[in-house]
């Protein structure tokens, strides 16, 4: 494991600009125990996040994609420390925050904020908009210039709402407006890192674009760093500088946007990309759609070796026995696969045992 970590670090170093990472995640693990009986004997664990490594650099947007249940939301809750990691380490600006207590974490909360998925659940229905957006100041004992009310109204304007909405209640707003309120709240303390968990998936497509563009503009204006979790590849492509693809609690591929979309290396990434609808009917017939067979295996008992092997058309013996490490096969393009696409085979001696499962259209 140490070897692979070294390789990874070098890979990242090559890819990254000279700046030190804002957020450094190493071997992050979160297992949810499954207990049974009166004595709460642990009989297993849901391996929601099972050893992931990545860095987030100041000013960039890291997109995290993956299908439902692959652990991307858990990952988001771990790096904002809403949940306690089972193992691994999280460093923010060089400071280890992996197991900080609630009290120890409080000063860090200013710098790490979260935007939530459900605009209907993330705002307290009993508080006014002014109260909601002003809460961070109250909790962190920050007195902004010109008072809390003036600052809240400025924030509301910043996200495209009217300052007159100060005394309204959340139920008077649409989903898109509520998400803007959530963004205003997240930005109140001028955070360095904003983790957005499916920020637009609960919104209409037209509103999605508004919110995504608002987030883009705010990033430029305020120099924010984003970790955006989404399952929508179009959204991710639009906003991300680098993209991490997750499958069953692991990062299988981590690359910059163009590299990932033009030449995906992991078969899973390729399958995901092939599932994106093409708006042009002429082009639609030209491409191969890769239809993955079956469901995601249970995270309680994941497959041995490579976790994707049960659904992979390139799987061989080595995939079942050895877990492929996440290594940089090209500058800034890390992948965890024995038989990557668009790159030299990592285990050429192991001939494919199965025939191609690619379903030609």
């Amino acid at each position: 494991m140490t070897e692979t970590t070294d390789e990874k670090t070098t890979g990242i170093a090559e890819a990254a600009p000279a700046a030190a990472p804002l957020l450094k995640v190493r071997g992050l693990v979160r297992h949810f125990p499954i207990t049974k009986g009166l004595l709460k004997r642990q009989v297993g664990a849901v391996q929601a996040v099972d050893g992931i490594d990545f860095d987030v650099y100041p000013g960039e947007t890291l997109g995290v994609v993956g299908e439902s249940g692959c652990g991307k939301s858990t990952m988001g809750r771990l790096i904002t420390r809403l949940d306690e990691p089972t193992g691994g380490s999280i460093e923010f600006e060089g400071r280890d925050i992996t197991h900080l207590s609630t009290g120890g974490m409080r000063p860090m909360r200013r710098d790490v904020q979260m935007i939530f998925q459900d605009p209907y659940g993330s705002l307290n229905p009993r508080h006014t908009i002014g109260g909601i957006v002003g809460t961070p100041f109250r909790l962190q004992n920050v007195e902004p210039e010109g008072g809390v009310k003036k600052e809240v109204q400025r924030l509301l304007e910043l996200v495209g709402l009217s300052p007159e909405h100060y005394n309204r209640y959340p139920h008077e707003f649409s989903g898109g407006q509520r998400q803007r309120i959530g963004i205003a709240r997240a930005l109140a303390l001028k955070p360095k890192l904003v983790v957005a968990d499916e920020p637009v998936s609960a919104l209409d497509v037209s509103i999605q674009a508004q919110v995504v563009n608002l987030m883009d503009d705010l990033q430029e204006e305020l120099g924010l760093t984003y970790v955006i979790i989404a399952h929508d590849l179009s959204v991710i492509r639009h906003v991300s500088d680098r993209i991490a693809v997750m499958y069953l609690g692991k990062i299988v591929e981590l690359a910059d946007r163009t590299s990932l979309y033009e030449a995906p290396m992991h078969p899973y990434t390729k399958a995901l990309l092939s599932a994106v609808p093409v708006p042009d009917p002429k082009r639609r017939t030209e491409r191969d759609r890769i239809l993955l067979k079956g469901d995601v295996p249970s995270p309680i008992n994941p497959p041995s070796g490579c976790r994707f092997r049960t659904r992979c058309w390139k799987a061989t013996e080595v995939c079942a026995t050895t877990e492929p490490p996440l290594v940089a096969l090209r500058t800034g393009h890390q992948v965890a696969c024995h038989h990557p696409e668009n790159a030299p085979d990592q285990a050429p001696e192991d001939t494919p045992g199965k025939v191609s499962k690619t379903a030609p259209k």
Partner: protein
Amino acid sequence: MTAPIETTGAAAEAQPEAVLEGVPSKRIEGRSLGQIAWLRFKRDKVAVAGAIVVILLIVIAALSRPLQSLLGLDPNEPNQSLIDPNTTLPLGDFGGMSADHPLGVDPKFGRDLLARVLEGSWVSLIVAFGATLLSVAIGTVLGVVAGYYRGRVDAVISRMMDVFLAFPLLLFAIAISASLQGGAFGLEGLPLHISVLIFVIGFFNWPYMGRIVRAQTLSLREREFVDAARGMGARGPFILFRELLPNLVGPIVVYSTLLIPSNILFEAALSFLGVGIQPPQSSWGGMLNQAVKYYEVDPQYMLVPGLAIFVTVLAFNLLGDGLRDALDPRSR
């Protein structure tokens, strides 16, 4: 794939301004959740009637003593002239109804029933409100703590609720009242009886409130605004009392109004058994207790406190149901 995003992107840039322009020059009244509930409540005629009766009752109970002197009636003044010395029953029809004594007089003493019902009203309402307040306070705090912290805290509090619910309350109340008859805590007579009743009823009824609050908290704590508050560095008490409690006001108010009538009945039951308010102080339960002996020969006597309890309990229940429909329309 990029095409739709670019077009919607252009449209989106125009949108925020559209949002700003969309703010109407004519002010639209913003309504808080309370105002919406009030509008909904006003439409429920039965509940409004219940509320009016409840308000009337509270006013009457608060002004009970002045009303008595205004009418020139004394609840403890015997009128032997109105009693048939042979049967000890009131003279005249309908339990001795007359212009001087609109609801008649009681047998044996000839005390005015209107004055006694008035006097009993404030005792009943004070005990019911006090006991309800006590159980709501204990139940809310313990319920929200159990629901939010879960785990061991929840296990301890929940088992405590089970124990309290399994307690033979009536026997306990009789024992406490009997042992405190002489005077305790520097109190004696009526204030002592009222405090004992409030304590016994309130302290043993809190688990009902506690369970409701705990169940509501369990579902509320999973909402994302709780995570959002934690993400901003909120401590436990802040989340409990600033984020969760405002969302629990609805159920708490509703179940309090439903708890009041049951506490009125409980007070009546204890006084009926002779362990609540002690004679000669009048209370609704105590009047019922005395009336039982005469129900065949003087049914009017039982009717007066019985109707008072009936109307009060019904009014509070109607009000409670109306409040529940208004504050929590999903529970219908």
